[in-house]
């Protein structure tokens, strides 16, 4: 691969746990690569491998023309030599230094005038005016996050590494800062690798997605393609596709596949992804499943599945329905719709699904 960043390194821990950083960043301009996966999947370790805070026990990492690490040659460039901006989950601001001193910390070799200018720039960029003399303990969570980001940006890093940059903030601040963060990164034109376990955060901030599970990279690619076309069921589950169920391929014709799913008569129609064998995983997102009461009327939806409601779980303005349609099927509907239709446990319903909303993952 001719990527600007190419990482194919592995860290081995005592006890057998292995974590790999295996992905690339195509070019040195702005892009956000999201390392996504459940907690414990090795995202942070992968990020630390890039930072040089963990030593690769196997494999190599190269940035542009520079080899950052090569286990075979015993090569390991320390973090100091990689020109990175690294932001940890806890921000790690220096408690004994003022906000301005924190921002200027990495600039100690530059002349005083340059240091002052840069700090003033960062203070303006991150909207921290008037707080220069405060210590981290006197700042709010959002302010600390911005200081930490500013400190990481101070030296004009060629790569920015952000470990759950918003997780220490309260929910409203997270939502507000997501958009701000992406706009800011775009303006700075720095490639960024960002770790998160929040699907919405990944979708909103990322351009490219690297899905990790159990220390392995399961899939990598442009974010929408990975979300729409997960290559294996584990990825689908990690990405939060609610229904992932194994089906038997009964028919493939004119680009449309028909699968028998579950114990009963349920049939699923979905676009043929090609190379379908005898079995495939059917991936269905909750928001794509419409629910009607009684018998289905005429509709363009190719899939009409009869079933009944097994459980209802309110989730904010939405209600998550678990249907029994011959297989467990999850549907996400609004609270209002739920009330209007008088949906309750045990009620018979029909689930409507457009074929195009269903994604098949071959499995043989």
């Amino acid at each position: 691969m001719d990527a600007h960043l190419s990482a194919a390194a592995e860290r081995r821990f005592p006890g057998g746990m292995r974590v790999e950083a295996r992905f690339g960043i195509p070019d040195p301009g702005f892009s956000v690569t999201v390392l996504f996966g459940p907690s414990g999947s090795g995202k942070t370790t992968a990020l630390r491998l890039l930072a040089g805070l963990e030593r690769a026990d196997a494999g190599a990492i190269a940035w542009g023309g520079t080899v950052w690490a090569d286990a075979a040659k015993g090569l390991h460039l320390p973090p100091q030599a990689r020109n990175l901006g690294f932001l940890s989950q806890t921000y790690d601001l220096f408690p004994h230094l003022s906000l301005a001193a924190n921002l200027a910390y990495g600039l100690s070799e530059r002349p005083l005038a340059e240091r002052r200018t840069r700090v003033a720039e960062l203070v303006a960029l991150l909207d921290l005016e008037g707080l220069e003399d405060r210590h981290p303990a006197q700042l709010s969570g959002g302010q600390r996050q911005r200081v930490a980001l500013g400190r990481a940006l101070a030296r004009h890093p060629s790569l920015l590494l952000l470990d759950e940059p918003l997780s220490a903030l309260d929910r409203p601040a997270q939502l507000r800062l997501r958009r701000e963060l992406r706009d800011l990164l775009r303006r700075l034109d720095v490639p960024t690798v960002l770790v998160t376990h929040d699907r919405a955060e990944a979708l909103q901030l990322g351009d490219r997605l690297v899905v990790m599970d159990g220390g392995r990279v399961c899939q990598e690619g442009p974010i929408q393609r990975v979300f729409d076309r997960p290559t294996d069921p584990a990825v689908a589950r990690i990405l939060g596709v609610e229904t992932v169920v194994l089906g038997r391929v009964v028919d493939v014709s004119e680009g449309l596949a028909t699968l028998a799913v579950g114990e009963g008569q349920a049939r699923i129609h979905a676009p043929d992804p090609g190379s379908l064998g005898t079995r495939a995983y059917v991936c269905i997102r909750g928001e794509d499943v419409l629910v009607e009461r009684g018998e289905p009327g005429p509709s363009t939806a190719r899939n009409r599945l009869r079933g009944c409601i097994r459980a209802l779980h309110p989730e904010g303005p939405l209600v998550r329905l678990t249907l029994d349609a011959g297989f467990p099927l999850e549907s996400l509907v609004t609270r209002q719709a739920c009330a209007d239709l008088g949906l309750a446990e045990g009620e018979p319903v029909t689930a409507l699904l457009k074929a195009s909303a269903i994604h098949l993952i071959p499995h043989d």
Partner: protein
Amino acid sequence: MDWEAIRLSLRLAALTTLALLALGLPLAYWLAFTRRRWKFLVEAVVALPLVLPPTVLGFYLLVAMGSRSPLGQAWTALTGHPLAFSFEGLLAASILYSLPFTVQPFAAAFAAVDRGLMEASWCLGVSRGRTFLRVVVPLSWAGILTGMVLSFAHTLGEFGVVLMVGGDLPGRTRTVSIAVFDQVQALDYAAAGRTALLLLGVSFTVLALVYGLRRAQRKPWTLI
């Protein structure tokens, strides 16, 4: 009052503290952050003076510094006088004897510094050495002060090692604690009482200072 002995003791304690600061900082840093498997052996060696009878430590030091040992011979060749029963010999012995009193508080204070802060510093391009000076030291000043005060007070009060290595030469190796011993031997209880009271006062003051500091370990930058 044996002012000569007091001066000597203070000089010895001050020099020991300075030497231990220079020696103890890197050693404690290594102990606090190394991942070497044999670290425990070094820890045990550093802690030895805590449990070893001073006479045992003094005996080995005496043998090591004696005129027949390579070290003793090299020292004599270099300086013209023997190492044993000299102030320099006493200083070397004091440094070893007070090592755990300095290194352990240092290492405990360093280990309490969040590793994330050091990593943040490294990622900002700052070397490990500069990170130590700019992040670790300012954040563990209380522990460093404790270690220095303890080594000073401990050196002031040592007796067994001094007697073994230094003997009892006025102006060269007779420290305050030895002076008390001499005064009691000479049945001069009044003088012994005065000297003892002085040592008691100094030691108490120093320890009260340390524990007071520990109590007030509130970091000066957290004002609220």
